[in-house]
């Protein structure tokens, strides 16, 4: 049994969402600018390509296309069937940019359109996939409405928030979003995406990185900020049934952050009385991490001791990041963990985190 907690899917162009949008938003998507509405994107370009070479239709590449030829059939062939995936959790690609648009109302409408599209094109078509709702964190009330609109459907098992953001997610401005998640018992997945893009803050306080390779090394920084913010604001105290997954932010950095936060909490807890217990206790109870991109030290023996601080046997969930260039193949990834952790990492931790139903044997 295998659960892949991070599988990206997306439309080829924003125009694909037209049938799923309200009329005024459709009008904007078609007629904005000179060639329709464009999304903000990274100022860096991957020098050898963002995507695994066999996951899209290279021949059909056209201007403006995000994932040409990316469709459910390819996901089935390349991933679900090839790796015998029991469940894949579908995460957005370009649609994550809705969360960093300055126009929060437009963002909310695009999110609804994307979620409708995802439901019809993927989730209702394939029982092995589940979706994360894309919502506008820059408009927390609208995000809560969207969570309440589609969150009750079994096809959606959580809420997606990108690492790039205007305000860290623990900040009380996001309270409506957290309330809606708890109401529906839906977890939140914070995934590195669009740091330094749109209304999101810079990748780090050092200033803008010059190269894609710098960005991709640092891109977890936004997530680290959200991780600390969520803990310090006592989100798990106010919403004890809330779960959070940190997707694609690395593992080793979280160990160091947690150690540092725990030390600081001891001295500064009077500033954050909502964080009543040592932060690590909340992490073990409420936070899960995805494996990809699993760090690759030159000496492999260094990996496990470096991540033991987040109790990976309880918190770690396998993820491939399909179809991206740094995809982690399941068998090789799981082999890097001790045998006694493997079932938990391969499926046990994600099953309980996403509260997935036990699959029926074919």
């Amino acid at each position: 049994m295998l659960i892949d907690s991070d599988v990206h899917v997306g439309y080829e162009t924003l125009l694909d969402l037209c049938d799923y949008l309200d009329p005024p938003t459709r009008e904007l998507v078609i007629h904005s600018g000179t060639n329709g509405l464009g999304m903000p994107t990274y100022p860096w370009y991957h020098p050898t390509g963002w995507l695994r070479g066999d996951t899209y239709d290279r021949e059909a590449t056209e201007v403006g296309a995000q994932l040409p030829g990316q469709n459910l059939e390819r996901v089935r062939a390349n991933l679900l069937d090839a790796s015998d995936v029991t469940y894949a959790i579908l995460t957005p690609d370009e649609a994550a940019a809705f969360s960093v648009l300055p126009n929060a109302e437009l963002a909310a409408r695009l999110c609804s359109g994307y979620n409708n599209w995802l439901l019809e094109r993927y989730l209702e078509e394939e029982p092995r996939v589940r979706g994360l709702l894309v919502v506008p964190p820059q408009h927390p009330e609208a995000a809560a409405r969207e969570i309440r609109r589609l969150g009750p459907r079994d096809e959606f098992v959580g809420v997606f928030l990108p690492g790039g953001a205007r305000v860290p997610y623990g900040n009380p401005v996001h309270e409506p979003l957290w309330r809606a998640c708890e109401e529906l018992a839906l977890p939140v997945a914070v995934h590195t995406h669009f740091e330094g893009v749109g209304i999101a803050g810079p990748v780090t306080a050092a200033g803008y990185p010059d190269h894609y390779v710098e960005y991709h090394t640092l891109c977890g920084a936004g997530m680290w900020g959200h991780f600390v913010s969520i803990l310090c604001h006592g989100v798990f105290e106010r919403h004890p049934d809330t779960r959070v997954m940190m997707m694609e932010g690395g593992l080793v950095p979280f160990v160091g952050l947690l150690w540092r936060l725990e030390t600081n909490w001891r001295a500064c807890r009077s500033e954050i009385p909502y964080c009543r217990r040592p932060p690590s206790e909340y992490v073990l109870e409420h936070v899960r991490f995805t494996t990809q991109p699993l760090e690759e030290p030159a000496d492999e023996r260094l990996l496990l001791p470096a991540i033991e601080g987040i109790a990976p046997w309880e918190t770690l969930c396998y993820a491939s990041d399909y179809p991206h260039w740094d995809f982690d193949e399941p068998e090789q990834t799981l082999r890097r963990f001790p045998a006694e952790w493997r079932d938990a990492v391969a499926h046990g931790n994600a099953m309980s985190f996403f509260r997935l139903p036990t699959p029926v044997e074919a």
Partner: protein
Amino acid sequence: MSAGRPRETRIPLAEAPPPGRVRMIRVGAHRIALFRVDGKFHALADRCPHRGAPLCSRGRVVTAIEVRDGEPAIGPQDALVRCPWHKWDFEIATGRCAVHPRLRVRRYTVEVDDGELVVSLSKAP
């Protein structure tokens, strides 16, 4: 028992610390801090079990900030001593560290006897 080393010290009740203050005394070679919390006297070693700082003589008596009914609220008045180095809090009444489950400050016995406070080196119950 080493001969000549006093095992206890007596001070007049009138010189006992008021709530929120510390009174440092010596019993033999031991530097001991006296506190008054909620009308009761407590004696703690002047050594932080975390990194050995002069916990009581240089630390501060503070009141915890807690959360009640979802709002920040004041805890028991002047019930903690805060280490001057790393700012870890310790419950004066129990010696327990508020932020580390395995650490505890050494506590000594304090009794009131005939208008005096008697602080002895025996461990407090």
